[in-house]
């Protein structure tokens, strides 16, 4: 399983790609694998404001419901409507086509993991 180098990650397995004042947010392939059969993605409303660490939605599988935590504070500009109708597609390309939300970022996110740190985190997770 590989994770893009230009993303930053949370310990709760969200990723963020920051480009200027804007960012794209999703969940990692590792998270998708742990969740199993995904049946629903609860999306935030466009225009909603969040602080870093706020819960902005949920991903639901047949096993569990997982909260989505904001990797950065900001306002939702766009949500991936395709996931609304076909949540099971998330597994196909979680780092690319099936991002969850796009944000305008108000302040730079703090205390996130870079790619090597996240890989290490995932490896440790597997031992538990």
């Amino acid at each position: 399983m590989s994770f893009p180098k230009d993303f930053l990650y949370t310990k709760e397995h969200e990723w963020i790609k920051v480009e200027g004042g804007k960012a794209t947010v999703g969940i990692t392939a590792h998270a998708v694998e742990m969740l199993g059969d995904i049946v629903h993605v609860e999306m935030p409303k466009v225009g909603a404001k969040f602080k870093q660490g706020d819960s902005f939605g949920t991903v639901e599988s047949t096993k569990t419901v997982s909260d989505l935590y904001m990797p950065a504070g900001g306002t939702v500009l766009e949500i991936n409507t395709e996931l609304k109708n076909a949540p099971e597609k998330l597994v196909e390309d979680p780092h690319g086509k099936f991002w969850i939300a796009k944000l305008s970022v108000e302040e730079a996110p703090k205390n996130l993991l870079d790619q090597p740190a996240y890989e290490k985190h995932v490896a440790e997770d597997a031992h538990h």
Partner: protein
Amino acid sequence: MEFMNKSTSNGVLLEEPTLFERSRPGARGTSIPTCDVPKINASAKFGNAFRKNTARLPEVSETEVVRHFSRLSTWNYAVDFGIFPLGSCTMKYNPRHNEEIARSGEISNAHPYDPEEWTQGHMAIIHDLTEDLKKILGMEDVSLQACAGAHGEYTGLAMIAAYERSKNRNRRTILAPDTSHGTNPASAAMAGFRIQQIVTGEDGVLHPDTVRAAMTDDVVCLMITNPNTIGFFEKNVKEFAEILRAKDAFLYIDGANLNAIMGIVRPGDFGCDVIQLNLHKTFSTPHGGGGPGSGPVGVSSRLVPFLPIPRVEKAGNKFVMQYNKPQTIGRVKAFFGNYGVMVRAWAYIKSLGSEGLRAVSENAIINANYLKAKLSNVLAVPLQNANLHEIIFNDNATKVGGLDTTKIAKRLIDYGMHPPTMHFPLCVKNAIMVEPTETEDRTELDRFVNAVKEIVSSGDTGAAPVRVFREKIDEAKAARELKLKYNFNR
């Protein structure tokens, strides 16, 4: 496949569509009485509020209704067929006499607002059951208003919240071990509390130092199950009670496992402040496929003023419903609780008497330990300690060959029996939790043992179950498509 063939029958299993598909205009399932008073034009009476768009209930004959539900019933497994060894759920035999009494005209026709003179007998039963449960539990008083274990749990916690208010305090933390049930945090949240998890010792019980270390000023309660969900007795329980009392905090016992200790030890004697039980577990009222239950709550003297109203009390030589309790939390349900369920439990206690109740617990313990002795060289026993009424195995010994917990459980269905509780408690990886109860005879216990042995020795990891009316059911599809009612346009 000696035992599989022995265990599975090929009953008459007929396919049956929904009743909506059988519906034919004009068909009747019963006769409506003739109107012996002047008819009223409902449309004129109600004007705009009159319903023109009739609900699409089915139109079918009585025969079709009876056949329909009889056929559906044949697709269910039940205690009436055999062992139902769900750990922690206590699926025991449901005596028929209890059912007959509960469905008698005397019980069925009683209206909750009947004049007091007519309901003396009902209040006597509620009072009698309350008194019996007080004795069995050793508690100061008992409320019968809650309709299920979770409802009782909420009621108990709401009383603690009310106690805190009465002392002008607002402690919000409840300690609970990692063996606890998911309802604990959910009920705590509904009563405005939050759960802090503490860790069970290697020996499967909780230790006083763990509790002491977690006792901050915000802790109002420790919530444990005793015997715990691993089937062990929390032997340090009295010390927990002392630690909590010193801070005017509470010891909450989830009484889900009372079946193991009746007449042997009483929660009130080991310092319990609140305990909720399930009449459908220990006291044999039928589960009915998910309810109705009844969740009596026993309390210590500190919490008596906060019990829900009304209370059945004796006033001279008659019973009354007493509403005048200034510190009560109020009602948790309309009327007086699931009375029909109480009646069944009442008859059960009358039938067994003191000695019988003790024999229930002793035989539940013996049967569980028999299964442990017979299966401990077949399945792994991850925690060694003195087991009471239930045993936890896991798949450590069989997983290598591909027989994990889920596979073993699903394969048991092919042997014509219900699987044990799986993957609970969470502190044991891939747990298989077996509770046979005292109502299984030796032949039935051996049927279970032989099935498990054959499953393990065969090493068959193919699809399971296959000898069933429906094979592996697609739960992901159900959750994605959400077809939650019949589609009349299909």
